């Protein structure tokens, strides 16, 4: 075979080091690309929704229509359908979560920005932390601290000795695993997606600059895959923003009903 399967000495496969970007300006840890992108997303979202809501009319213009359909999607399809009675007080949180995650994810495929901030695990952890705080507070407020904890730790209709096995699992699920599963899915998808794009684009770039003519001819396939994966990433990014909002809504709904 004329193409070696071992990567050549010049090719550096993308790794986690590609996610530790140097500061854009200055020498501080607070001016790195992800943090600037998060601030940019906040500014963009605020400007967009202020502009969409300022000239609110009965017959909506284009801007107002887009803004209202995003809002209606979160309010009707997520909050009302899942939480049900008393959903209105959670709409602001869910709406903020959805738009924030969506815009930050889509930054991953916009030229020149091209970095999803959520591929740094700290950002999803903080979002999951908000959600965690809210649903536990709601549960304690609604049912009282003792009853809420008892409902979590002791499942009714189980023989007494099984509690030794089951209670640690229940407590760990509610207090340790839930925020982790909530955030890790978003993080892993964004991380893997960005790495995938790096592999295809970086690989295509390396093949194009290789000395063999054969490699040069094959490089457009790698670039083509990179472009196809970019569209695929767009889908994944929207889906992940939807899923983290959906799961937050489900946890809030679970804390609201006292099923135990």
């Amino acid at each position, binding site marked *: 075979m004329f193409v070696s399967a071992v990567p050549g000495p010049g090719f550096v496969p993308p790794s986690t080091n590609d996610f530790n970007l140097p500061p854009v300006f200055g020498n501080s840890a607070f001016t790195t690309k992800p943090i600037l992108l998060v601030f940019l997303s906040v500014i963009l979202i605020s400007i967009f929704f202020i502009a969409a809501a300022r000239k609110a009319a009965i017959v909506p213009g284009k801007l107002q229509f887009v803004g209202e359909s995003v809002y209606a999607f979160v309010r009707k399809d997520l909050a009302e359908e899942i939480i049900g009675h008393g959903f209105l007080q959670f709409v602001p949180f869910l709406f903020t979560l959805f738009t924030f995650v969506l815009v930050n994810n889509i930054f991953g495929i916009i030229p020149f920005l091209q970095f999803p901030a959520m591929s740094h695990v700290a950002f999803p952890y903080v979002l999951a932390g908000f959600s965690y705080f809210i649903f536990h507070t709601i549960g304690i407020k609604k049912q009282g601290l003792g009853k809420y904890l008892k409902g979590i730790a002791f499942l009714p209709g189980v023989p007494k000795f099984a509690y030794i096995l*089951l209670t*640690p699992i229940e407590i760990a699920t509610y207090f340790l695993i839930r925020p982790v*599963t909530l955030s890790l899915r978003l993080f892993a998808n964004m991380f893997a997606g960005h790495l995938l794009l790096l592999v295809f684009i970086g690989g295509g770039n390396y093949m194009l600059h290789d000395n063999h003519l054969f490699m040069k001819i094959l490089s457009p396939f790698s670039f083509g895959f990179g472009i196809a994966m970019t569209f695929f990433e767009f889908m994944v990014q929207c889906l992940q923003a939807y899923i983290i909002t*959906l*799961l937050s809504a*489900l946890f809030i709904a679970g804390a609201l009903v006292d099923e135990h």
Partner: protein
Amino acid sequence: MASNEEGALWSILGYLISGLLIWGGIGYGLDHWINPHHHWFLLTGCLLGMGASIYLVWLRFGRE
């Protein structure tokens, strides 16, 4: 209704992971404490935790 199932699936996964981590972690700790060269407590703990979490899944979602 569909979102209901999605929530159930993720909480099943959460139960399985935490059962494995809690009891497997206790087994791992015992192994380190008693005899660091064998993994018998780890294996016992993993099996015990997995059994307990499948039992828990059956209790929560399996019975009518």
